[in-house]
């Protein structure tokens, strides 16, 4: 029986260039949008919304972010504190700023309070910061489309 001559089958090659291009574009996209400031944005805090809340043009010099939950406790970094325990922490921060050559009077206390927190508790927190020597405060809100 005569055998059919074996046909030459060309080697299949995957076109890698477009895939690599697209993958690098995706990496660039995610790298640009990655947010490293998660420590200052506790997910337990549901910020009140405001149409006038715009991100600041320049970051404050020595910011300290205090986050108040709806229960009235305060997150400083990952530590959850009662109001009574905030002052010693602020004293330590004040000393650290001084040792790093900064002026604690230029420190801005950023208050990220939950929208269901009691206003009185927020005012108490401000009063504690004032008694520690801090004078500049900003109240943070999330941006809301008008």
């Amino acid at each position: 029986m005569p055998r059919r001559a074996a046909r030459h089958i060309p080697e299949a090659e995957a076109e890698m260039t477009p895939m690599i291009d697209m993958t690098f574009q995706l990496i660039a996209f995610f790298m640009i949008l990655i947010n490293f400031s998660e420590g200052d944005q506790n997910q337990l805090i549901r910020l009140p919304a405001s149409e006038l809340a715009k991100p600041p043009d320049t970051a404050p010099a020595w910011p300290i972010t205090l986050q108040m939950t709806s229960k009235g406790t305060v997150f400083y970094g990952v530590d959850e504190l009662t109001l009574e325990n905030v002052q010693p922490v602020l004293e330590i921060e004040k000393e650290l700023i001084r040792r790093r050559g900064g002026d604690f009077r230029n420190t801005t206390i950023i208050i990220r309070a939950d929208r269901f927190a009691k206003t009185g508790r927020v005012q108490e927190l401000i009063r504690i910061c004032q008694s520690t020597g801090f004078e500049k405060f900003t109240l943070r809100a999330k941006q809301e489309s008008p």
Partner: protein
Amino acid sequence: MKFRGSGKHVGGKIELMMTPMIDVVFQLLTFFIMTFKIVAPEGDFFVKMPLSAPSAGVPSDLQLPPIKVRMTAGPGGELAGLYLSERRLANFNELREQIRALVGDSGGPGSAGDAEVELDCDYDLRYEYVIRAITAVSGYVSPDGQIVRLIEKIKFAPPRSEGI
């Protein structure tokens, strides 16, 4: 002059090892996808809270008294009453309109730049109403999308006792 190694691999195809590079690239991509989180933009409202209480005595003629905004709390911290200098208002839009009428949108003497608002709130009032009041007195977004600033000097009255 003869270079060492010249003549080797002439016409030979240099093959790049693509597999490790693609592996690393996909690991990077996975890392970024897993850590990606959509965060709403946030903004700040500056609050003037000087360390010491204002000194007693005769105030300067140039110093305007603060515009007082009072907010009372109902059950559960809901807003029960909104007052502008003891006049009851229906909502925050009315507060904004009243502030616009008081200070005007344009600059000049007696304009928004000189005015100051003092917020006097019940202890139990929900904090979101404070931000809404600050928004109402701070400005508004015009129909063309521009932010028109009204009063940016805001301070709190001394805190009231708990339960009030």
